[in-house]
């Protein structure tokens, strides 16, 4: 669990900034909390006086206010408190929801903007967990911890002010007890916060081990180690418990400082009033009752704060990866236009292009140059790792070359805004991703404004209808997560239909048949051939069948360089 200090620092900074951004939504929670504490104080005043007055006939003191007024007052303050509690809970929920919404949109926006390159460093599942689960884990920070932190200071101060009117000495006692709480925690060395942290870390560790073993359960079972591993899990949990409890035994001493402060204040004040009244040195039974009733109110915000510390820990755990997401650009790049984009198609040229993913493994492209005239097809051939996919990814704008120039109709693609580039190109990769939705939705993804008719035409041209008609709901069959599982060839045909629908002048095909068996491959190639008519096509492949695809232009790549060219490439 070694963490680098720098990442921790970034996470802390990020959290502080987020709390600031969320402040606007927190003040209703704080305000209603304060009002509620005020109302409770008012109730204590009413109740104290009522009780004192009830006792008064026996002690001989005259009643102060009519009992009915006090009871009415108490009741209406009680109703107000209930209303405030409702309002405060709702406001707290809203503060958490607003923060989740803001941070989620920001995080997903950053990832979407950074584009496919983020998938080189992380699995999409991890990124989704970041955007979904980690953001959810921040909820308590905004809905509970941040308001509780403010109330832990202001709440006791308000109660102490009310007590000041009844008995200044009692206010002083409470103030001392209140200040003692954080000092007492610090004095015990570790603090209630730290007890909470130890406990949290222990749980997190146990949980991490458990998740790890559950994820690998097939490996364990097939190695015949299930029973032994269950034993080890138990041993690890026992050991962790023993170690954590050893620490908690000390750490809880400091948590006791809150109990100590409360008990001491209560006992001290009760004895002061009890003996004072009995001996006649204290004359106001109402004030005595009020102050005693206010003692728990004084400590309640401190207790809520201690309870909310868990939320802060959850948030700190989630903050690290969120704090280090790629930034959004300051401003969109300069707009640029391509000179011609329609009927005649587009011409593509690579001029001495170089790109290195990882210096340890050498360049992916090393001074690559070629030219594809409008409406022609170029086959990029060569073994895996020769740079075929990299060339295509540059044309898609997934990455930028380190050196050289890539032009479309003479315009440098570095100067094109991504949307303009996306309008020009259609792309089919090795394994298309099908989104959760119907087959129709998935085709329409290529051009959301397309009519049903156009979608069906595209589905027919790509031979999607051939298999879709055999499915229970035809084009309306749900695919993707939780839906019907399409085979690799069927998924690829959906991708071809997307390209048909998009009708872009430049078609980029990256090993579109790499995962297909020969029969399916030839079917998909036939569809692609129809799609290629009238377009500029770049097809990266090392399949012999696919290399017979085009009209003879072919470029062989090896280690990022062109080794032989056929046709005028």
């Amino acid at each position: 669990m070694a963490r680098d200090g720098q990442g921790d620092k970034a996470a802390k900074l990020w959290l502080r900034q987020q709390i600031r951004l969320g402040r606007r939504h927190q003040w209703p929670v704080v305000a209603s909390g304060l009002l509620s504490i005020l109302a409770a104080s008012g109730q204590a005043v009413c109740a104290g006086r009522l009780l004192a007055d009830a006792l008064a006939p026996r002690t001989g003191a005259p009643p102060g206010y009519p009992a009915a007024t006090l009871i009415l007052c108490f009741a209406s303050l009680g109703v107000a408190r209930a209303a405030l509690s409702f309002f405060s809970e709702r406001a707290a929920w809203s503060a958490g929801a607003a923060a989740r919404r803001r941070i989620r949109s920001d995080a997903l926006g950053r990832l979407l903007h950074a584009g496919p390159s983020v998938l080189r460093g992380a699995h999409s599942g991890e990124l989704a967990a970041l955007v979904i689960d980690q953001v959810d884990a921040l909820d308590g920070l905004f809905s509970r911890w941040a308001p509780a932190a403010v109330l832990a200071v202001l709440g006791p101060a308000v109660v102490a002010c009310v007590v000041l009117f009844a008995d200044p000495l009692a206010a002083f006692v409470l103030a001392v007890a209140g200040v003692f709480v954080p000092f007492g925690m610090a004095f015990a060395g570790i603090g209630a916060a730290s007890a909470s942290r130890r406990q949290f870390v222990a749980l997190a560790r146990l949980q991490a081990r458990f998740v790890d073993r559950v994820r690998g359960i097939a490996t364990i079972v097939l190695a015949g180690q299930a029973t032994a591993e269950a034993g080890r899990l138990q041993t690890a949990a026992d050991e962790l418990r023993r170690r954590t409890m050893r620490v908690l035994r000390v750490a809880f001493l400091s948590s006791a400082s809150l109990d100590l402060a409360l008990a001491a204040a209560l006992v001290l004040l009760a004895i002061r009033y009890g003996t004072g009244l009995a001996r006649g040195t204290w004359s106001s039974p109402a004030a005595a009752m009020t102050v005693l009733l206010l003692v728990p109110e004084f400590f309640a915000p401190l207790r809520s704060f201690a309870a909310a510390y868990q939320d802060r820990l959850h948030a700190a755990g989630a903050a690290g990866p969120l704090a280090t997401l790629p930034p959004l650009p300051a401003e969109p790049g300069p707009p640029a236009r391509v000179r011609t984009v329609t009927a005649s198609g587009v011409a593509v040229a690579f001029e001495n292009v170089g790109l290195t993913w990882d210096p340890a493994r050498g360049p992916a492209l090393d001074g690559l140059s070629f030219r594809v005239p409008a409406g022609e097809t170029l086959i990029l051939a060569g073994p895996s790792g020769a740079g075929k996919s990299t060339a295509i990814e540059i044309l898609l704008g997934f990455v930028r070359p380190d050196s050289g120039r890539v032009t479309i109709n003479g315009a440098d693609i570095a100067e094109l805004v991504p949307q303009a580039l996306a309008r020009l190109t259609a792309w089919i990769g090795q394994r298309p991703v099908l989104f959760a939705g119907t087959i129709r939705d998935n085709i329409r993804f290529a051009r959301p404004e397309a009519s049903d008719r156009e979608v069906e035409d595209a589905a027919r041209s790509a031979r999607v209808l051939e298999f879709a008609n055999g499915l229970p709901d035809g084009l309306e069959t749900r695919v993707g997560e939780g839906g019907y599982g399409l085979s690799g060839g069927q998924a690829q045909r959906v991708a071809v239909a997307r390209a048909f629908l998009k009708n872009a002048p430049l078609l980029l095909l990256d090993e579109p048949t790499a995962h297909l068996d020969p029969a399916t491959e030839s079917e998909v190639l036939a569809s692609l051939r129809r799609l290629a008519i009238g377009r500029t096509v770049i097809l990266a492949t090392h399949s012999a069948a696919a290399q017979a695809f085009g009209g003879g232009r072919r470029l062989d790549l090896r280690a990022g360089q062109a080794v032989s060219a056929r046709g005028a490439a």
Partner: protein
Amino acid sequence: MSALVRIVRLWRGQAAWLALGLLVSLLSLAAGIALMTASGALVGEALLAGALVAPIVLRLLGVGRIVLRYAERLATHEATFRALASLRVWFFRKLAAGSAGGTGFRRTGEVLARLVADVEAQDGLYLRILVPLAGAIVLLPVLTVVIGARDPRLAAGIGACFVLSGFVLPGIASRLTVAAGGRITDAAAAMRVAGLDALTGLREVRAFAAEGRALASVQAREADLLHAQRTLADRAAVAGALALLSSQAAVLLVLAAAPADPATAVLAAFLVVAAFEAVAGLPRAGVLAGHAAAAAARILDVAEAPLAVPEPLAPRALPASHRLRFEKVSFRWLPERPAVFEGLNLDVPPGARIAVLGPSGSGKSTLAALALKVVAPDSGRVLLGDTDLAGLTAASLRTRMSWLSQTTHLFDDTIRANLLLARPDADETALWAALDTARIADVVRALPDGLDTWVGESGARFSGGQGRRLALARTLLSPAPILILDEPCAGLDAETERAFLQTLNDAAADRSVVLIAHRLTGVERLDRTYRLSAGHAVAAAA
């Protein structure tokens, strides 16, 4: 709720600690309430008769409260940690024994992680739900008896308020949560899918300039989820406010009774304030209980799923031969799904190296599942030697088979612990020999901690190729004579893949090898190649 009861029953082994935690926390609660009540009584009696609650009693209660609170924290945490561990171990055993193999085979890591989150949802069950609930149950008779002895009508009124705020409203909150749970779970799942789609499909999203649409889709799902959550939060807030209101009503009853019997009123006022404060958190605990109950039902569903492959009643001894044969095997995962195999025949003689090729979705992994007895054929037989796998226990069969796939997991543990999983009694020499054969020994030797180096989560400390070699070393360490390699190179780049397969040629010299892949790279040394097609294995030119 019955699911929660069953979870609590799993804690039988920890009953002593759980009971001790409960007892101490009840004593601590009693001390706290006695302290508050005695403080009030001290002042009240001073006014009435001068018959004091001795200050010494108050001091004792104060000290007692502090000590008991400390003891309560220790005891309840000890009990919680024990309960958590026993639940996790139980779940792990169930998952491993029951549907385990199949679950690990078919379900993705994300699904498993979600199940783990359901287990985690039980963490607050004891400390945040059961302990406060027990407090409320004990407080109710105390309240009614103490006050009822002086004023039965007042006691009845207060008791009614207490039942409302301590039991009825929390119960309603938990029911509402269970009812809303389905909607929230669905909405949350939809949002997760939208997020996963956008990120898995980043290439598609960029190629079709769909960034805005992808973001909007997640935001729309999020809005649905927030709407569902808001409805529940509102209702829970109402329950909380009503609980507060009923505690106010109880105090009001006391105050209204004050003129008639001030002595009782003073006592009751402080008692009621303290008692209701102790149960103030219960409506929230009710919401928590609702969540925990829904999660518990999901856990029990998985843990108690019937065995995918029943164990034989009279297991047969392992045959001497390790020839592996599929005879007219038919199989489908679910009755409504198309058949994966129909009359599949395949023969792997001892020491043979064969490859089974097929496109994705053709059932390649199912072949491994059948051989490892993770699933059983619908008809036909899988034989080891001349013995039907149905007659062998899974455990004994798996001593003959070693499995390596892209989903083979590297555990967040040391290299040594990862290797020993395959053969717990292996000595240092055997470990290094396996690492040598897998051509990863030099890398390990160069590490400062050698075999005791931590591999990180899913082997994060190593590159993809190195991680796969570590997994291979583990596979080779196992004495099993049959190696089943299910797409062992998926996710590796071409160069690494070829190097890995070349290592494999030399590594498994005297064992049977079944290599399952969607294509060959040309470097594999094979005796025979089969292609899967329409549920059959067709011999292909090697």
